[in-house]
């Protein structure tokens, strides 16, 4: 069943390349062969974490002329927020590598394709 789909695609491609009917739609400069790898999907661009904590700390600094001892509370809360954010990022990336039901991760697909690469030398 994959072969029927395959031949239909090949016929369509050969029609697009031919000069018999109309002007050729495709004029490839390289052979029409897929690569042995899959592109990495862009993970959704996150937002800046801990901005509120940072702005509170900076306001405190501005008031106290950048003396650190008077702003220790804000600084402690900023550090805690940063720690939490780092743990959240780690968990999220772990969950992504493990999850993704039904579909392969791009890295996993690349590993598989590399095991059975396209033959470019006839041995």
């Amino acid at each position, binding site marked *: 069943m994959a072969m029927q789909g395959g031949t239909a695609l090949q016929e369509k491609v050969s029609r697009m390349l031919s000069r018999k009917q109309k002007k050729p739609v495709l004029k490839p400069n390289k052979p029409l062969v897929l690569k042995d790898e899959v592109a990495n999907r862009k993970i959704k661009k996150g*937002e*800046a974490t801990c901005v509120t904590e940072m702005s509170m*700390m900076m306001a405190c600094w501005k008031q106290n002329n950048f003396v650190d001892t008077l702003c220790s509370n804000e600084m402690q809360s900023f550090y805690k927020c940063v720690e939490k954010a780092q743990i959240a990022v780690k968990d999220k990336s772990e969950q992504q590598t493990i999850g993704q039901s039904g579909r392969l991760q791009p890295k996993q697909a690349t590993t598989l394709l590399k095991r059975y690469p396209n033959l470019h030398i006839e041995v």
Partner: protein
Amino acid sequence: MLYFGKQIIEISFALWHLPESLPRGLRGTTFSKMSASITGLLKPWTPRVFLVRWSRYNPYYLEPEPRKEVYHIPETELTPEQKEERELKSVRPIKAATNSVTSSVFNDPVLSKFVNMMMKDGDKIIAKGIITQTLENMKRKQVEKYHKAPEGKKAEIECNPYAIFHQALENCKPVIGLASIQKGGKFYQVPIPLTDNRRRFLAMKWMITECRDNKHRRTLMYEKLSQELLAAFSKEGNVVKRKHELHKMAESNRAYAHYRWW
């Protein structure tokens, strides 16, 4: 007749079963990145050649434990995890400890890192000598101050040079850093939170560059370093000023904080 030979064979076969302690994630995976390199190396295995003074090891090797307190705990007070760890250590090979790791009471990882950063061309002897002279110099200055101070103020003067070093370094650590982020063709200096390692590195780097660049031709390194450390301990001096300037830059650029995506 006592068949010792058969017993020995049985023991050696027992070692070749897959250990139950192997984490689940590693047992049946075929698609994980690790499958190509690491799972093949984590099976029970004895090295035929024992590696000494390497830095690249088979991941089967365990880390050495230099702290003495761990070995002084009596058998009865060990938690189950510690017991399991000890059993594992009796079976698996262990990496050789590096030269910088000691079990002595004077081992200070922060100080060792500072010595390494100060070292030039691998000359650790000179770097360690400079640091020792610095600590001695700081102690002398503080003791002089202590003896000259009136009775009420004596308790406030810190004489321990290691404590002064650690506190000075803490006072030099920046809280927030700047990163160059490109947005719409232009580069903006965006304030970002820093990791602890990065903060410690920046503090040490500033201290060392300050002492190398801004000193009179005839002052020696240890003299200048002790002056800077004492100044940083009391939150004065050029290094703390540099930290404050970084904070001021970050504060002036706080509008760009949203250009970060992590």
